[in-house]
């Protein structure tokens, strides 16, 4: 069992945990490595890639040159579990399901960045992913990795499943509205825009530069997979079944998500009430910034101003004529939408400062 840390001492005598990353050659894996190589409480013990085994990681992730001399290893569950306190799995959906189960059975703690353990209802895997989940029992043990919603459960979790990038972005904007019983829970519409890195590192004809550049492409107008997660979490918050309709669009940025979430108010609500609802939920959250400014360029959330950071910026407005609330949220899909959330969960799991290694000011301009 690796619930306790196999301590080594870092700078300043602070204890470090030994961490492994499976599937470290992809975009999410690379982003995880970017955060982990400088994290003061982490010793990078093992990183795996079938394709690049034996190669220095900076050959695949050039930005890491000079930060680590670690090389990719082939996948070896026994080695990972004996050498690591915690293993991140950053392999594609459907590939993680067996790897995570095997890791979990060794007793090592796991943070999975795929979708394979996010949804509690096994039937949803058939509907949204087209396969039957082989380990429904493990779904119930997995903790959904949004610290803003599940901090206490994450603290002692052996398996954390990080949320989908658009799901977490949308949820952080919608959660206060459900928590304060402000909206009609049967008619919520999530309109999402996402950059090209959200499609991962595996090329397809649609990701080729000539086809991807300049697009505003609705790529899954209905039945997008993240819908299941948003409904699941909103239903937990609301204490009843919540219905969400979602349409994502591929847009001409590399990193970033903007979710424009539409809902209808149950009663007349003022902007001040909304401020109090959002403040009530996020006042002490290190990675949620509330953006509804009457001054300056940045009046509402915009992914341009969160790139490289773990922030999810959240804002809102009210359309009084139609009793509609527009809840806006922006994040970096590789950070708060993936690797940043994963490291935030790690910090919670090990009792580190939750912002350790993550307080990065956004890169501007990009």
């Amino acid at each position, binding site marked *: 069992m690796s619930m306790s840390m196999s301590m080594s001492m870092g700078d300043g005598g602070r204890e470090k945990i030994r961490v492994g990353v499976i599937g470290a050659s992809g975009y999410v894996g690379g982003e995880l490595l970017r955060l982990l190589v400088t994290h003061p409480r982490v010793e990078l013990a093992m990183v795996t890639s079938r394709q690049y085994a034996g190669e220095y990681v900076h050959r695949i992730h050039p930005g890491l040159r000079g930060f680590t001399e670690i090389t990719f290893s082939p996948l070896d569950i026994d080695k990972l579990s004996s050498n690591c306190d915690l293993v991140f799995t950053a392999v594609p959906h459907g590939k993680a399901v067996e790897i995570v189960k095997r890791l979990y059975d060794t007793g090592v703690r796991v943070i999975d960045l795929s979708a394979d353990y996010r949804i509690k209802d096994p039937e949803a895997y058939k509907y949204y992913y087209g396969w039957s989940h082989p380990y429904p029992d493990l779904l119930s043990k997995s903790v959904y990795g949004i610290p803003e919603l599940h901090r206490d459960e994450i603290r002692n979790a052996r398996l954390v499943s990080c949320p989908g990038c658009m799901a977490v972005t949308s949820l952080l904007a919608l959660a206060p509205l459900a928590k304060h019983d402000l909206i009609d829970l049967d008619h919520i519409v999530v309109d999402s825009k996402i950059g090209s890195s959200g499609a991962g590192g595996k090329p397809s004809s649609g990701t080729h530069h000539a086809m991807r550049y300049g697009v505003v492409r609705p790529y899954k107008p209905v039945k997008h997979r993240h819908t299941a997660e948003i409904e699941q979490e909103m239903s937990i918050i609301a204490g009843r079944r919540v219905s969400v309709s979602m349409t994502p669009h591929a847009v001409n940025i590399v990193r970033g998500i903007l979710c424009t979430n539409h809902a209808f108010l149950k009663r007349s609500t003022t*902007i*001040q009430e909304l*401020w109090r609802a959002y*403040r009530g939920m996020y006042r002490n959250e290190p990675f949620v910034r*509330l953006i*509804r*400014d*009457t*001054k*300056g360029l940045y009046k509402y959330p915009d992914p341009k101003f969160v790139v490289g950071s773990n922030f999810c910026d959240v804002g809102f407005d009210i359309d009084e004529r139609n009793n509609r609330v527009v809840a806006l949220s922006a994040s970096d899909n590789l950070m708060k939408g993936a690797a940043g959330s994963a490291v935030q969960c790690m910090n919670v799991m090990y009792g580190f400062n939750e912002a350790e290694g993550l307080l990065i000011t956004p890169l501007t301009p990009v």
Partner: protein
Amino acid sequence: MVKVRCPECDKDLNIPDDAVDGEIVTCPDCGANYEVTHMDGKITLKPAESVGEDWGE
């Protein structure tokens, strides 16, 4: 500094101890402008007049 909640967005504002009546403070989050007033030894904020921005055509 004296902490006073922004009446608009509920943010904790830091008002200088030596703020005088009529001094304008702006909330860093929502951008609302307030005029500082002292009442019964306490600082209170009242909305300050400002010129609205009109982007319409």
